[in-house]
């Protein structure tokens, strides 16, 4: 049960932090339609986090609500991968990051629809629809920017180059993953890689982009090791719950 809670946090934290990052775009998008699209994606991600946290709280059985889980943990207790906590950068950075995680999420939640944990399987079924739409949206932008102007090509290529050091971490497995896989709760992260690779290659090629390589991949997010960005994200995100503890909003 502790394993399941931990595993759920890994899932929920990815959605939560990426959703939080996307909130920063609000009102600053390159075109109104994208303001709407980005907040739509953010809304889905935060919705996913809420479902997953609520489930985690119930499995844990200590009465933790979705808000307790989101607002009362400090950096080292967060289990998200490094990719989702990266700054938004320019629109190309945001789209490269998004497409990378969307491709991952489609494979992950697709596998999770067969989870032996019924509740998680149900959440995954709902989430799969959302992330499939996200992938279409970000994928289209990757193609548009890659095969757009010289400037957009340069920017989106640079964005992938910058973010490629975060790829390995997505597919890292540890003991917990082994137990989760054995229990039929979730897939072995490694097993998601071939499909991710082929989707990535297909879209990069259509976008006339070069697949980057990474010398020194980041890792450890799932174990609570994070970049210096996360602390700042949490300082804003948790301010109200920290400054006004235990109140109803």
């Amino acid at each position, binding site marked *: 049960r502790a394993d399941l809670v931990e595993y759920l946090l890994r899932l929920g934290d990815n959605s939560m932090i990426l959703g939080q990052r996307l909130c920063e775009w609000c009102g600053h998008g390159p075109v109104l*339609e994208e303001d709407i699209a980005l907040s739509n994606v953010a809304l889905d991600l935060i919705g996913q986090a809420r479902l997953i946290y609520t489930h985690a709280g119930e499995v844990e059985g200590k009465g933790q609500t979705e808000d307790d889980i989101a607002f009362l943990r400090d950096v080292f207790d967060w289990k998200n991968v490094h990719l989702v906590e990266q700054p938004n950068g320019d*629109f190309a950075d945001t789209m490269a990051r998004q497409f990378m995680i969307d491709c991952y999420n489609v494979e992950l939640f697709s596998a999770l629809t067969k989870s032996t944990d019924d509740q998680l399987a149900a959440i995954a079924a709902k989430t799969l629809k959302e992330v499939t739409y996200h992938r279409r949206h970000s994928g289209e932008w990757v193609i548009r*920017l890659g095969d757009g*102007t010289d400037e957009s090509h340069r920017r989106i290529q640079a964005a992938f180059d910058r973010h490629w050091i975060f790829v390995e971490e997505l597919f890292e497995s540890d003991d917990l993953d082994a137990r989760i896989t054995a229990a039929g709760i979730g897939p072995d992260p490694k097993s998601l890689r071939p499909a991710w690779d082929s989707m990535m290659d297909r879209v990069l090629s259509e976008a006339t982009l070069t697949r980057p390589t990474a010398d020194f991949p980041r890792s450890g997010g799932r174990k609570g090791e994070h970049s210096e960005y996360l602390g700042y994200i949490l300082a804003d995100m948790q301010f*109200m719950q920290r400054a006004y503890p235990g109140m109803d909003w």
Partner: protein
Amino acid sequence: MSDQAHLSPEDESGAARFQALLDREEKIEPRDWMPDRYRKLLVRQISQHAHSEVVGMLPEGNWLTRAPTLKRKAVLLAKIQDEAGHALYLYSACETLGTSREETIEALLDGRAKYSSIFNYPVPTWADVGAIGWLVDGAAIVNQVMLCRCSYGPYARAMERICKEESFHQRQGYEIMIKLAQGTPAQKKLAQDALNRWWWPSLMMFGPHDSESTHGNQSTEWKIKRRSNDDLRQHFIDMTVPQAEFLGLTVPDPDLKWNEDRGHYDFGPINWDEFKAVLKGGGPVGRERMAARRAAHDDGAWVREAAIAHAEKRKARQHAAAAE
């Protein structure tokens, strides 16, 4: 020189039809003849309204990353998303009058067009998010309900869609206020402070007194505006004061009291100097708002260009493929 002075015979029949439509309370549609000034007045008003939706995303957007619960964060996101949607409807309504979205946005960015100066007040606390929903959206609805009966069809129809969502926003804002008002002393203080700051600016949203309004008359004749500023303001006050009482909050107006004879609330004098200063000087955070919009526009230029370039490439390829 009035519009009537140089009408061609064709225009004359158009003008007659235009007046007939107005008289019969039917809608003017994009392809109908309409006086130039009617068109200009509408473009001015609708684009100002559209810009207000866009700029209005910023003050609340401020609190997306800091909303106190996940539910509130999600609701606020959905609300701001709606506002962007409203702006799209309204830019479309402008386009039916022959003004492209690009032109309209240019006018905002170079300072020719205005937006509601209510968004030039800062939003320093979470309670402000509640107060904006309750009071600012509340005032907007009073205006918009009237505009659903406006003589120009596309604008009236856009307003109908917008009103539905807006009343949902107003309810959400009020719900935030209820939570605060029923909460701890710290929360109640947040709520009261926000009411203190937003009350008078909300009243100013209805514009100057009827006696001083510049566009009022023509707008009323053409059935764009169907109730006067003072009338709408009174309606808003009558509606809102009981809500404040229900919350147990004090409206920051010592002169406010129910007038049995009038069947309305009497209220104190509005500080029009502040109104004018905010209109003129951009208010406490007007500069920041415009800087944010300009930066979004400038930083996004390469994205918009890329989208166009890609669409053209794609079209050319389809063409080439079809030609083979």
